[in-house]
């Protein structure tokens, strides 16, 4: 690999002023939400979130979305937080803040498409983890949602290089991370790890963000990393990728992510991947609607 290109990219990623900063509301909110659930007070969370108008609106919207299975309309922030559950607030707060972080149309990746991909990975990862009774099912949603955190790092710190990589991926119909490596000697998994460590995200999130394209190399949380890696691949093959189709033929059972997942979770053997694929297609509609609605609100 071209050492100098890679070193230049790394230098840009490692200087903090180039990187997106953690949204103001998020730090205190996350710190508070990491207390045990029974020590949390709904009113405190309401107070924090209501400081941020768009987060408030998005909470309301999420609380009313079919994803959270609401039957009754929720019309107050307090109601929304109760409906979503305090345990879910971390997920919602992170999701909403990240949604706002991707600059519109810089680097050629359409934010709507990017969030559709992220949300699809989140939903399918959780669905699969529950269905296969995997021990980390409750962590799967957020892990899926944030797995491509590095794309945000790249778009912000290396906008031109990233745009070139995306253009190359599109033209050659190859996976995005391969094109990134080709263009700038580094891919979004590596840069994602740098940003995730900077933000001090939870260890399992750092693992997923950093290793989802090379799950066999993950040192911790291997099952979760492999699951998200596999779901990411599936989403890309079913039209929920980065806005283009990769020209390739994939046998999931021959994938590194599958072998790793199988080592960690033998229950995966015998899973019905055809059905899982059809179930993923079911999410397409929900994902489109939710992302469109969240974007309209910003």
């Amino acid at each position, binding site marked *: 690999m071209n050492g100098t290109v890679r070193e230049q990219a790394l230098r840009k990623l490692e200087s903090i002023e180039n990187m997106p900063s953690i949204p103001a509301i998020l730090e205190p909110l996350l710190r508070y939400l990491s207390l045990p659930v029974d020590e949390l007070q709904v009113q405190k969370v309401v107070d924090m979130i209501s400081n941020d108008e768009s987060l408030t609106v998005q909470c309301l919207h999420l609380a009313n979305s079919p994803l959270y299975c609401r039957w009754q309309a929720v019309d107050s922030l307090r109601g929304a937080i109760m409906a979503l559950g305090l345990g879910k607030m971390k997920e919602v707060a992170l999701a909403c803040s990240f949604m706002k972080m991707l600059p519109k149309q810089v680097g050629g990746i359409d934010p709507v498409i990017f969030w559709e991909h992220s949300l699809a990975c989140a939903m399918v990862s959780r669905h699969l983890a529950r269905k296969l009774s995997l021990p980390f099912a409750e962590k799967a949603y957020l892990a899926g949602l944030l797995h491509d955190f590095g794309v945000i790092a790249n778009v912000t710190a290396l906008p031109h290089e990233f745009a070139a990589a995306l253009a190359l991926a599109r033209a050659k119909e190859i996976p995005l991370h391969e094109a990134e490596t080709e263009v700038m000697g580094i891919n979004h998994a590596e840069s994602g790890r740098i940003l995730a460590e900077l933000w001090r995200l939870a260890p399992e999130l750092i693992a997923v963000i950093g290793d989802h394209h090379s799950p066999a190399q993950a040192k911790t949380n291997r099952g979760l990393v492999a699951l998200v890696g596999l779901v990411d*691949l*599936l989403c890309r*093959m*079913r*039209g929920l990728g980065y806005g283009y*189709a*990769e*020209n*390739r*033929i*994939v*046998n*999931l*059972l*021959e994938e590194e992510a599958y072998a790793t997942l199988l080592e960690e979770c033998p229950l995966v*053997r015998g899973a*019905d*991947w*055809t*059905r899982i*694929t*059809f179930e993923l297609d079911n999410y397409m509609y929900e994902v489109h609607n939710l992302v469109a609605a969240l974007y309209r609100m910003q």
Partner: protein
Amino acid sequence: MSTSASAREPNPKNFVPDLHLLGIRDVIYKTAGIFQRDHKLHLLKVRCTLRMKELGIGLLRDYFQYLTKPSGQVETTILLNGILVGETRFFRSMPQLDALRKIVLPKLVAAKSTAAARTLKIWSAGCSTGEEAYTLAIILLEASSLLDDWTCSVLATDLNQNSVEHAKRGIYGESSTRNVPPPLRQKYFVKDATGLSVSPEIRALVSFQRLNLLDGRHLSMIAKTDVIFCRNVLIHFDMASKTRVIEHLHNSLSPAGVLFVGHAESLFGVSNNFSLLHMPAAIAYEKTKTSLAKRRLL
């Protein structure tokens, strides 16, 4: 195209099936692998009544006997012609056809490039009135730059004699040709008084045969097929018949061959000898490699 005796007939609530009607259901099941469920039995009766009028038979009991005597095979064929539903059209399920064109054909050409004979065989199993088979022939002709010095052929089979005859005639109306892209319509169809007639160039690639997919003896003569399209056929079968048909298809497929089933159909639970393949927005199956089969048993 044959329509079944038809969804137009309402299902009479208090329809009580005659014992002989149940016997006729068994004849159909044993011959074609198709089981007429109770709520469809009244349609079977309509079909039988039509035939009985033509034959001058008054009682179902007599018709049942007529079907089951040694010479009844001919009548079974005729009855089946009315029962087998053949809804189909040109260029059905585009993502699968794109996958064939962009991924599977190049893969096969690469895999077989060292073979002595440069031949490529595609089989449309359950071809109905032939639209799928001619579509495949068009795709082969359009891939001429890739298949320059290759000898290609399409075998097309169906159990319904009427459909096979229609297919051989190769003349189609508006509704079944509506998906043909205009340039291809220009190039490969000739308009005459009766409709759109398939050009001789395409016809030359395709051969039609009446064939029962449950007939192992005849099926064993179809060997070394590189691509099988068996779409929207298995849905009519119960598990036992599906398993039998799929085993036959497995034997007919070349080692690097690919099997396409209908876009919502699955081989899960039907056969372990096939592995799922993902291509952009399309799935297909390949023969399970022995190393994987072993790994699965571990």
